[in-house]
């Protein structure tokens, strides 16, 4: 079931005595993070085999005999909770349910921790709420969802100053990034330094590294499901922040009190505003900024129907005087109708829209240049959830996506040269998915399993152009003939069955074993032109030359809690097999090339590893320690002479440590340390001297490693006492952070070229983010 729909709401409510020995237990069940009421939560008393389900308003009510009872609250996608009560009168018990992993705000009614780490059937996933993310020291004070995700086991950073990430040996384009279910195709601002997710608009984040539910499809390696906050339906609130890089402002409140609400959140960087003060005219006219806007509204139509409408709009603007301009950005929109057929059966019908575009233009002397690129994605889907019994859940759904990938035309006009127009290949396609998933707890919840199947289809439709290549020379494919696709006609068709399964065996209350298997299929991929994912890397689809990429992943895990569930630990091992994975040939010409498919080769890949996680999610001192050992390799004919080689994201060791300490109610200290083996890279084995210039000689692709990566970040947050004036509650906080405390120069990329200042001397150098970088941010809310 859709998690966001499933945002469960538990109420624990008032109780009315019905008889002398019977009392009523009631309440409201809510999502701990969003505060949204949760519909359809199972409330069950195992001893009496009696139960009920929360209604559309998240309310439940159950009549029980006087005495001690254990109640179990369960809901798909949320952590099962147990509550022991001594019922001596009517009673209200409101429940706040957590939707996964790392928890963070301890607002449970009892001080007792749940053992969700052990009892949840899901594995290879992590959930973070935004408050946890905010406690981790941030680069330049900018709280960033993606940078926090990079701290998780099995997730590798694409590099310093880079919000890109790799999951279990997958590429950056194999992560399905969803914002309120709409795909975000480029999640970075400012050349990857920041992500597009404004922390003030985000409620929670869930990352699936494996055991991916059948409702998700289209990417091989992970799903990053990000939910925006829902505006408060009862009162108006304002919060924001002023930092070194950007300022933020969020306003939320009721539209119709108790029935509908809104949230609007925006932020903008302002480094370019300081350039206006420069004496240099070119610098004054230089622009370098980004902004984004999030909004969300929801409307309770009646007891059985709710509407949600949310969206995102963001742009990066880079302009060097009037010589060079580059802007790019995403737009997403999500419209969701939640309908309750009855207490055990409800649906979500969603219409989703995603757009990514960039525009590059330059005018230098006699030369003009322009490149506009668009990507549209229209997605209609229906998800259904049926709860036939307390121990079982059946979910199913259907989805259809229209992809319009128009990488655009690159037009160049140079005096004396013919106007050059490179029409990059348009990809239009329809991607469909139909899925079913069944989850069952058996043997008194000692054993649980979920089995599911997704059937995905892709249809290549015109207009567009297809090329057939002469592949006699594996190193250089030449276009043999060209086929123009007629508008609306279907050409290539692909279909793939994607089985998914997971199981959990509870050894005892403190430990369990879990296993999962999933097959994922990916029909779109991104052509990466340089060492870092760039905003102008275009997406392209399967075709007559490119088969769908397929990944099979098997994961096993042992989960163990300690100290009354206050400390959680897990060990997971995984093996992942890739088919039809692509890579670029040596000196491949990917950038702005209409024959990009001829520059790619397809083969197999495999990745395996072990992840160790130890975390203390709550308390004055909380944090996590994670360590990942992993290997990622590929074998692709036409690359590296057809021999196996390390994937660019192969990284043997990856260690992260993050923590938070509430020194006093006013002072909080945050720490984050990461260490990782250097990224796989190709280093020279020698050089040639030719016509007075040096050029490196390379051997095996990705056989070497960049220098190891490590970094320590610290932060201190001071939260003064709440002030009140005219019944307005005002709270603020100061966050002081230092990124890269000991100034480690972690390479972003390495250059091998002649020394610019000492001609004739071969040199190597690398770009890095200097450190330490201090930052201060003032946050407020009222």
């Amino acid at each position, binding site marked *: 079931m859709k998690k966001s729909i499933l945002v469960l709401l538990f109420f624990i409510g008032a109780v009315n005595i019905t008889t002398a020995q019977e009392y009523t237990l009631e309440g409201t069940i809510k999502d701990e993070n969003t505060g949204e009421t949760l519909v359809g939560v199972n409330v069950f008393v195992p001893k009496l085999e009696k139960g009920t389900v929360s209604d559309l308003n998240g309310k439940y009510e159950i009549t029980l005999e006087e005495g001690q009872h254990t109640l179990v609250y369960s809901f798909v996608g949320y952590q099962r909770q147990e509550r022991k009560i001594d019922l001596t009168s009517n009673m209200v018990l409101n429940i706040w349910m957590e939707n996964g992993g790392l928890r963070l705000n301890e607002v449970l009614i009892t001080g007792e921790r749940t053992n969700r780490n052990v009892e949840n059937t899901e594995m290879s996933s992590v959930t973070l709420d935004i408050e946890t993310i905010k406690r981790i020291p941030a680069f330049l004070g900018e709280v960033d969802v993606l940078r926090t995700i990079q701290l998780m086991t099995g997730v590798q950073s694409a590099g310093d*100053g880079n919000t890109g990430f790799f999951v279990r040996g997958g590429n950056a384009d194999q992560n399905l990034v969803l914002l309120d279910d709409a795909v975000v195709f480029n999640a970075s601002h400012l050349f990857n330094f920041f992500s597009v997710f404004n922390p003030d608009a985000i409620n929670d984040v869930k990352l699936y590294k494996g055991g991916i539910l059948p409702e998700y499809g289209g990417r091989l390696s992970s799903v990053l499901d990000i939910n925006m906050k829902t505006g408060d339906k009862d009162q108006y609130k304002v919060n924001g922040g002023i930092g070194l890089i950007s300022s933020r402002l969020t306003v939320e409140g009721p539209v119709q009190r108790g029935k509908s609400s809104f949230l609007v959140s925006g932020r903008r960087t302002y480094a370019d505003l300081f350039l206006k003060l420069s004496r240099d005219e070119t610098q004054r006219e230089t622009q370098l900024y980004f902004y984004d806007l999030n909004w969300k509204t929801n409307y309770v139509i009646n007891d059985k129907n709710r509407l949600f409408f949310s969206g995102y709009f963001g742009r990066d603007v880079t302009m060097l005087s009037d010589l060079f301009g580059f802007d790019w950005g995403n737009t997403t929109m999500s419209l969701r109708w939640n309908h309750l057929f009855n207490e055990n059966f409800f649906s979500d019908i969603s219409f989703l829209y995603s757009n990514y575009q960039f525009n590059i233009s330059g005018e230098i002397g006699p*030369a003009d240049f322009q490149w506009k690129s668009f990507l549209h994605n229209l997605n209609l889907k229906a998800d259904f959830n049926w709860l036939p019994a307390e121990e079982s859940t059946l979910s199913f759904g259907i989805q259809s996506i229209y992809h319009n990938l128009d990488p655009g035309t690159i037009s160049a006009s140079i005096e*004396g040269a*013919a106007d050059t127009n490179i029409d990059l290949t348009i990809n239009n396609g329809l991607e469909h998915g139909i899925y079913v998933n069944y989850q069952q707890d058996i043997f008194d919840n000692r054993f649980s399993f979920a089995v599911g199947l997704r059937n995905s289809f892709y249809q290549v439709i015109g207009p567009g152009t297809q090329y057939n290549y002469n592949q006699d020379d594996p190193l250089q494919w030449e276009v043999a003939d060209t086929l123009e696709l007629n508008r609306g006609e279907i050409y290539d068709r692909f279909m793939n069955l994607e089985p998914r399964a997971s199981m959990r065996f509870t050894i005892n209350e403190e430990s369990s074993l879990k296993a999962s298997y999933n097959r994922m299929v990916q029909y779109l991929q991104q052509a990466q032109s340089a060492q870092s994912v760039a905003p102008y890397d275009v997406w392209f689809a399967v075709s007559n030359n490119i088969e769908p990429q397929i990944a099979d992943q098997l994961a096993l895990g042992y989960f163990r809690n300690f100290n009354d569930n206050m400390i959680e630990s897990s060990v997971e091992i995984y093996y992942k097999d890739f088919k039809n994975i692509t890579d670029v040939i040596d000196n491949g010409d990917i950038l702005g090339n209409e024959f990009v498919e001829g520059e790619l080769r397809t083969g197999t890949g495999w990745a395996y590893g072990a992840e160790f996680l130890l975390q203390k999610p709550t308390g004055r001192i909380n944090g996590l320690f994670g360590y990942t050992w992993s290997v990622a390799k590929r074998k692709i004919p036409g690359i590296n002479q057809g021999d196996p080689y390390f994937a660019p994201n192969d990284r043997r060791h990856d260690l992260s440590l993050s923590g938070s300490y509430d020194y006093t109610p006013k002072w909080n200290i945050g720490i984050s340390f990461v260490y990782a083996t250097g990224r796989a890279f190709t280093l020279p084995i020698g050089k040639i001297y*030719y016509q007075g210039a040096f050029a490196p*000689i390379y051997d095996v692709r990705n056989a070497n490693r960049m220098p190891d990566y490590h970094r320590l970040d610290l932060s201190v947050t001071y939260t003064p006492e709440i002030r009140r004036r005219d019944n307005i509650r005002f709270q603020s906080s100061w966050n002081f952070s230092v990124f890269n405390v000991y100034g480690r*120069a972690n390479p972003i990329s390495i*250059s091998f070229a002649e020394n610019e200042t000492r001609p004739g001397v071969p040199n190597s150098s690398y*770009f890095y983010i200097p450190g330490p970088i201090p930052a201060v941010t003032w946050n407020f809310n009222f």
Partner: protein
Amino acid sequence: MNLQKKLLRWFSFLIVFAAFLSCEKDVVLDLADKEGTFLVVEANLTNDGRKQWIRLSESSSYYERSFGDPVSDALVEISDGQNTFTFTESQVDTLTGYYYNEQISHAFTQTIYQLEVSHNENVYTAQSEFRPVPSLDSVTVELSFFSQLGFGEIDFYDVYVHFDEFEEEGDHYLFNMYVRDTLKTSRPNQKAVLSDETLQDYVSLSVLGFNEEEVFDGDKVVVEIRSISEENFNFHNIFFFQTDLSGNPFAGAPPANIPTNMSDGAKGFFQVSSVHRDSIIFKKPQD
């Protein structure tokens, strides 16, 4: 300059912006040098009537301050299928590894030439097609657009060539510039290369440039156009990507070997070209 190269030059602006947030640092890495060396062949021959030369050298460790040890005692021959031209190694100490031939420049005809280098019981070969080249009508010099905008403290000038392009497709050209009889574009990444795919029938195009500290009022500027193969065109472009844009995280290419038309693991390139030259006397514009 081909479109993509120009495109990448534009993209290299991105590094300017990235520089707002990043720094560059020299570093010496622990490189695993491969045992043994590769033969490097530098063979760019023309029909200009002069003595032609081929340089043979060995590759070296990356950080070693070496211009490549010369390779002596090799047998170097070029054949057009009927005639074989033998290149003889110079006996001058400072020109060890240079092999010369005086006849071949006068003998080029439109055909395929095969280079064969025999050394240490190994034989390395390459082929190159000799193609005609258009004559330059004229060469002109104009103040660069950058200078007009006031970038930098010294003026830059663009060098334009004007010529009739061949009707047939598939031609590629290389441009060199000489100032005061000295080649100013000796390195592969300094030369300009063009594909006729991007050219109009009559070409008036800025291909090279210089600054006011390199060329003075009254200097003779000679521009040379050579016919080259598509492979050689790619060779120069990739040389540019792998050296000038090396390490640029946004516009560079993943590290890979620069292609060669030499066989058996040898590096470098063998190219035979037609050549034509024209010149202009540089007159610095009056302020």
